[in-house]
């Protein structure tokens, strides 16, 4: 197991190198002079040349890449063209908000998707099953950004149950930049802030959860149906065990593995999907940072975020494979 883990970890290095090459050369050949963007249209050619030299933009592209890659390996993604602050600091300030949103959404997706999928499998070919399938189809067909607008209209504007944007009411005095605001304020016993942060979290998390919930439900149904058709389920039925126990004790455990895989894969997708959701709800996370950076042609920030999320994505896949071995005694990696 240890040697397998080591091999897989080593294998992530060429993947991340490839991704960094891809992203760097794509963004840096995109045109748009960062020096011009930073200084504006009034800057004279001498100042522009000076700034280009200072930023190292006058060097060959491959030298700039090596500089970027060696910095990134040490967690240094350079400085933002727009704000001149280190990109790593900008990411560190925003990442926790995205993680909070993504974890909340994944939690909702696992619970909702798991329940819908399991009920559909156990009550196969009933109204519940068909309703579940319809829900799954809607979940993968409705665009996130439209769902976001609809929940804002319904729950924010008509019913006035929930706030429509931001992370916390500024009047409460809590800084929205606090990492994991909901959990932190809960632990501090600051109920007012925790409650408000939670209310801000519900709509974006529900919106972001729709797609993965549909995928989890579909996989749970398929996987549970397969387990219920296996010999051990028939044996358990033959012993006279009630169907509920067969599902909970025997089938569910074996149906877990494929579900776990999609949860792992979807979590990476979810971090990407947060780009859109954060834009709709003005959620101060990585997605919003990326969109602002793209419109400002601040490619230092864009490549930093993309590379970081790619690394998380690759590591998540590795984690899923390891969990596989832990959960299924038949799988042994040599």
């Amino acid at each position, binding site marked *: 197991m240890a040697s397998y883990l080591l091999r897989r970890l080593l294998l992530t290095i060429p993947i991340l190198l490839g991704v960094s090459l891809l992203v760097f050369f794509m*963004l840096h*050949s995109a045109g748009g002079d960062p020096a011009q963007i930073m200084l504006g249209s009034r800057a004279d050619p001498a100042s522009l040349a000076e700034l280009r030299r200072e930023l190292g933009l006058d060097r060959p592209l491959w030298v700039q890449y090596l500089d970027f890659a060696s910095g990134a390996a040490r967690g240094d993604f350079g400085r933002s063209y727009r704000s001149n602050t280190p990109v790593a600091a900008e990411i560190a300030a925003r990442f926790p908000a995205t993680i909070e949103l993504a974890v909340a959404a994944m939690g909702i997706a696992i619970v909702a998707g798991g329940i819908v999928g399991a009920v559909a499998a156990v009550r196969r070919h009933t109204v519940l099953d068909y309703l579940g399938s319809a829900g799954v189809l809607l979940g*993968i*067909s*409705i665009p996130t950004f439209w769902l976001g*607008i609809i929940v804002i209209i319904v729950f924010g504007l008509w019913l006035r149950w929930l706030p429509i944007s931001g992370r916390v009411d500024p009047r409460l005095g809590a800084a929205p930049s606090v990492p994991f605001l909901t959990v932190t304020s809960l632990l501090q016993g600051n109920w007012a802030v925790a409650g408000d942060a939670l209310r801000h979290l519900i709509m974006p998390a529900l919106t972001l959860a729709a797609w993965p919930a549909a995928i989890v439900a579909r996989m749970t149904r398929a996987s549970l149906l397969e387990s219920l058709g296996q010999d051990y389920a028939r044996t358990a039925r033959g012993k006279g065990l009630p169907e509920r126990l067969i599902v909970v004790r025997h089938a569910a455990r074996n149906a877990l593995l494929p579900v776990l895989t999609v949860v792992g894969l979807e979590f990476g*997708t979810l971090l990407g999907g947060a780009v*859109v959701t954060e834009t709709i709800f003005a959620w101060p996370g990585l997605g919003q940072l990326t969109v602002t950076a793209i419109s400002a042609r601040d490619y230092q920030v864009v490549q930093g975020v993309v590379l970081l*999320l790619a690394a998380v994505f690759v590591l998540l896949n590795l984690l899923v494979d390891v969990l596989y071995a832990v959960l299924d005694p038949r799988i042994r990696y040599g």
Partner: protein
Amino acid sequence: MGVAILAVLAVVAVVGPLLVRDPAAQNIRDRLQPPNAVYWFGTDDLGRDIFARVVSGAPISLASGLASVAVGLGLGTLVGTVAGYAEGRTGLALMAGVDLLLALPAILLAITVAARLGAGLPAAMLAAGLVGLPAYARLARASTLAVKRREMVDAARAIGASDRQIVARHIVPNILTPLIVQSTIGVGNAILLVSALGFLGLGAQPPTPEWGRMLADAQRYVTSSPYIGIFPGLAISLTVLGFNLAGDGLRDALDPTVGR
């Protein structure tokens, strides 16, 4: 059901734009009107007819979805077939390149490509196509590996067929079924991605009546005129639903292993 939705959409896309008002015509006096007898879906902030814009957006979305899939399916099949047929180092190198595309969440890859090419509908379509490419390449490679071991390939080789002829005449026709099923579902996903890029300002540019872009514009008026955002989103959802249903149906019909 899926085919019915797609048939209606195709008719709307072909005939609709000829029957509605000019989707770009601005009528400031009638701006921000809720749905009424004259403007069925209301008007936007520039007084444009939302019904006309949604109908005129149908050919754009359908074409962008189909074009994206054509890019992904074409390139993916080419890469996957070559990788499967050649195997060895060439195959491994090609598939390593494909796997690289998988190491990025779809929307981030699309954003990077669109940022490189400059905002616009063609860039968004190419981006969505590249996002789909790995799925087709993997499928094509796996199917090619299976088909190339069949006797008909040996027979073709024995009568002197070249590698190119074998791939074009014997392998590609035999791996098409799973690729077609995958691409039907892929059109829906591509439409979602192109409209998401439009929503983020990286896709179609104004005044093109692209549905994602329309939703981005609608967002500013969500508190005062929420109806602006309802119809373009409904149109996207219905279109994607149509392709997903048709894809599921096609898979059930063509794949005997799918339980019913």
